[in-house]
């Protein structure tokens, strides 16, 4: 019989490994719009890790700031400047 806290910790490790993959894709991607989208995926996984680490107040701040506001700002910047990294 597996304990519930062990399952929670396993899910947390899975989210952390997925966020590593998302970070790698965001850094190595040439297209900047795709890089911002990978960064948003990584922020979503970080928000889930914050929730599992017993910090619900940080989730309430982190989700609007880092998943909503920050990609919108960077997408506006990309729209005004270059879309490809040379």
């Amino acid at each position, binding site marked *: 019989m597996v304990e519930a*806290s062990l399952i929670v910790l396993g899910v947390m490790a899975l989210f952390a490994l997925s966020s590593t993959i998302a970070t790698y894709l*965001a*850094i190595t991607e040439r297209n*900047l719009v795709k890089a911002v989208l990978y960064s948003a995926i990584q922020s979503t996984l970080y928000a889930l890790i914050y929730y599992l680490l017993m910090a619900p107040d940080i989730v309430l*701040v982190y989700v609007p700031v*880092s998943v909503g506001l920050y990609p919108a700002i960077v997408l506006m910047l990309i729209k005004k400047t*270059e879309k490809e*990294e040379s």
Partner: protein
Amino acid sequence: MIDAFTFLFTTCMLSIIVNLGISLYGVLYRPSLIKKIISLTIFSDSANITAIIIGYVRWRNPGEIAPPVLLNPSPTLEDIETFAKVAVDPLPQALVLTAIVIGLAVTLFLVFLTLQMYRFYGTTDVRRIAKLRG
């Protein structure tokens, strides 16, 4: 023999540290200024989550663990004892809450600096900006 708790917790911590390394590479070696901004945000988020993991006191009480919230508005002594035994450390959470908001302001400042640099120089590539004269 390493138990499952330690293995999964170490996996989580190592992933965050690898994230720190990858994003530091992005800040230092990618030529585009926009990619540098994205990497800097990932770097600050990873540093914040490291602080939260250090405040997650799994080694003190491995059984039950709860958010640092008092449910009883007028707590008795037993409530406070249970709270101190079960809750995670609230101090890193307060610090990280401040750091997220300050990070948003810093990111906005860098975004407008990059926009002005593009308007002046016509590029966001630091190699081409470094070659410009005059």
